[in-house]
Structures are given as structure tokens and as C-alpha cells.
């Protein structure tokens, strides 16, 4: 299986790339790391008229920390994020999730912008965008706009990015000092897409839980924040009983599908089990423990 014919472009600037997107009016695809798009093209499930390769735009790869925000150029490779001291210090949940993205030789090519724009609901980064209140910056012919996860993801492999817009940056506020966090996922083989994944973060003041985040991957058409489960922790703290109650509630909040990998009931059960595991690990890490 080989890709069908396409016109290849490798622009040197973002402006050029956006110009090409505009010119092809939705018939072109942006090529970032290629770890999802190339398989689709090899199988001819995707047959874009043109390919706009972003790998020559060196200015799209960076990790910067300023003013409590960590900003990632869209073409920053997952392997760079995995080893970044800034990410380990300020966004340890992202660091942990990154080790679960595909396999080592996938992460050397795969990018943060590509993973988020591809919007696979069982991928880790879309869930992290939702869990850490991240935003993406989209650039189009009319300028830039910022979108949160809830505004960006529109269902399976679908986003609200316009055909002439490209994702250029991903921003996260630094996690609060001492926050507890964990990313739990279940799959048949290390590195495969998650059958279910749970991103969790807990923020505490003494014994009180001031903020909780529980976000799913793999149990619906887009990552979902389980607000009703988070509220149990914010009300009752992070005792075993509260964590069990939040995990049971989480399982009632999801609407998973049945597919070749797992039944809906199995995914619902995994949601409960993994939410419990993630919250227990997050609670154990509170205060930088």
C-alpha cells in the first residue's frame, strides 16, 4: 500500500503554509509528524490533492516558559517534550502522558500540534489539553484565534479549525505547585491507543481539595471532563471513600461505544477502575511527595 499521487509543498514559513491552505480550499492536508496521516495515506483512506509539509518551518518547534505559561510550537516533537526539564517541572502530567504516546520511534517524529489537530479521541494529548485548561492558537488568513479543548474538539477526528487555519501553538498554564497528578491508561500492548485513558489532577489546601480534574480518553467521540465526579472530591476531599465515590460516578457519566477493541460495558467498567487508580496515585503525589 502506497500513497496516491499528490502535489508536495514544503513551505518555509507559517504565512506560506496558510497561503497554500487557502489556495487549495480544503483539498490539502498539513503534514506534521506524519504518524497518523501517513498510515491513512498509505492505505488510501486519505487522498489529499496536496500535502503541505511543515517540517521545514524551524520556527514551529520550541518550548518556552513565560509568565506562568508554557508554550509549545506546534511542531515540537513528543520526544522533546518527554525529556524537557521545563515540562517535568511545570507540567508533570503532560510529561507522564507523553511516555504513553505511541512508541519511542513514533515520538521522535510525532508532534504536539499534530496529535491535537488530528483529534483522535483515544489519544493522550487531547485529554491533557482538556485536563490542564490548555488553549491552541490557530492561524488563518484573517489572523489568530485561541480555542480551548471544549471549543476545538468536534467529535471523532474532527475539530472546529477552518480549512484555511492551522494550529501553530499549544499553551498551558503551569500546574499549581504541589498538585497531584496521574495518567492511567489500559491497552492490549504498551504504546497502542488507549482503550480507556484517564487524566487526573488534584490541588489541595491542607486536607481540602480546592480543584480536581478528571478527563477521559477513548470513551467517547472527544475527551470529556467529568465535572460531576470532580465535584465529589472538591466537596469530600480525597479519602478512599471519596475517591471510590468519584470513580463510581465517573462510570455513570460516560457514553462509550462498542467497537472491535472493547464493548461499551467494558469501557464503562475501565472508566471506574482507572479513575480510581489515577486519583489514588494523584492523591499520593500531593505536595510533591
Amino acid at each position, binding site marked *: 500500500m502506497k*500513497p496516491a*499521487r499528490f502535489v*508536495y509543498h514544503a513551505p518555509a514559513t507559517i504565512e506560506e503554509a496558510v497561503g497554500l491552505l487557502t489556495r487549495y480550499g480544503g483539498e490539502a492536508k498539513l503534514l506534521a509528524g506524519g504518524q497518523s496521516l501517513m*498510515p491513512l495515506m*498509505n492505505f488510501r483512506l486519505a487522498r489529499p490533492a496536496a500535502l503541505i509539509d511543515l517540517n521545514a518551518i524551524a520556527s514551529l518547534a520550541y518550548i518556552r516558559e513565560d509568565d506562568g505559561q508554557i508554550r509549545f510550537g506546534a511542531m515540537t516533537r513528543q520526544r522533546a517534550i518527554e525529556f524537557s526539564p521545563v515540562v517535568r517541572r511545570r507540567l508533570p502530567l503532560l510529561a507522564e502522558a507523553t511516555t504513553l504516546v505511541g512508541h519511542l*520511534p*513514533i515520538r*521522535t517524529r510525532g508532534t504536539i500540534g499534530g496529535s491535537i489537530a488530528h483529534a483522535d479521541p483515544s489519544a493522550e494529548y487531547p485529554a491533557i489539553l482538556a485536563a490542564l485548561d490548555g488553549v491552541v492558537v490557530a492561524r488563518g488568513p484573517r489572523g489568530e484565534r485561541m480555542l480551548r479543548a471544549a471549543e476545538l474538539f468536534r467529535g471523532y477526528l474532527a475539530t472546529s479549525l477552518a480549512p484555511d487555519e492551522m494550529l501553530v501553538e499549544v499553551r498551558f498554564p503551569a500546574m499549581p505547585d504541589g498538585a497531584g497528578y496521574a495518567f492511567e491508561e489500559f491497552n492490549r500492548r504498551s504504546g497502542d491507543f488507549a482503550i480507556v485513558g484517564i487524566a487526573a489532577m488534584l490541588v489541595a489546601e491542607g486536607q481540602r481539595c480546592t480543584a480536581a480534574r478528571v478527563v477521559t480518553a477513548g470513551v467517547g467521540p472527544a475527551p470529556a471532563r467529568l465535572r460531576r465526579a470532580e465535584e465529589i472530591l472538591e466537596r469530600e476531599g480525597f479519602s478512599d471513600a471519596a475517591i471510590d465515590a468519584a470513580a463510581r460516578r465517573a462510570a455513570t457519566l460516560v457514553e462509550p461505544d462498542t467497537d472491535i477493541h472493547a464493548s461499551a460495558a467494558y469501557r464503562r467498567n475501565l472508566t471506574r477502575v482507572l479513575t480510581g487508580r489515577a486519583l489514588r496515585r494523584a492523591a499520593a503525589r500531593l505536595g510533591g511527595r
Partner: protein
Amino acid sequence: MTDLASIRLTVNGQVREGRCETRKLLVDFLREDLGLTGTHVGCEHGVCGACTVMVNREAARSCLMLAVQANGLDLLTIEGLMKDGRLHPLQEAFHEHHGLQCGFCTPGMLLTALDLLQANPRPTEAEIRQGLSAVLCRCTGYQGIVKAVEAAAASLRSTR
């Protein structure tokens, strides 16, 4: 815009040139245009890992890159792993510990292990197993491969 591209890259320390369709996959360019058939074509969608090569000193699937994307880059394939007529310590260890049977996955396995050990010279067994989950082997059951990578890690540390 033409469908053909001229490509000039470094493979195993040598500058190589070729001209091919822009849709040609890197793995096919290596095999068909450069005659380097040591890199194997397996699943062609980034799952099996047989086609893994080093691109700018990092392991990457050559079925998920276009040949044109390798223009100007520095590649290492299995043909370049031996030095001065001597097997690389990873190759020695795979031989010693029965890290292969049919050999189809072996080039990808070796180059994945090479990146694994350069990033983490002292991996635990669990880290080795996680790293090598990137490459499918249907013969060995992985036991010999894991032993081989452990042995190669020790040997590479002692020669450093």
C-alpha cells in the same frame, strides 16, 4: 510543482543522491533507489517497526516518512551498524543471546534498541520491554531479545 524530487542525503556516512516521485516512501527509496535492502518493509502503517532506521540519530519508521522528507538529513540503516568489519555490540549480543530467529524484525529491533540505549544507557528490564514493544517479533517471544539488549547495554557502558 513537479511530482519528482531530487534527494541528497547522508546514509551510513556516505552522501547519496536519487530522484523519485514525491509520494515515494523513505523505506522504498532506501531499498529500490539506493539498493539498501537491509531495511525491511512490514506493515507499511507504522505498527510493526521492521522498517525502523535512525534519522538524525533518532529512531523513526521509514514507512511513515516520504523519501523527499529525508532530503539533507543524516540516516543510519542496518548496513551502517558494523564498524571496521566488526559487529556492533548490539549485533554481537543478539547473536550471543539468540535475539533472532527468522531475522525479519531484526534491523528494526536493533535500531530501536540503539536509540533506547543512547537515551537510557542503564535501562531496567521493564524499560527495555516497553521500548521494544515498538517492534513486533513473531519468532522469539522476546526473551532472547531482552537479554541481548541488557547485555549490549552493559557492554556499551564498559567501552565508554
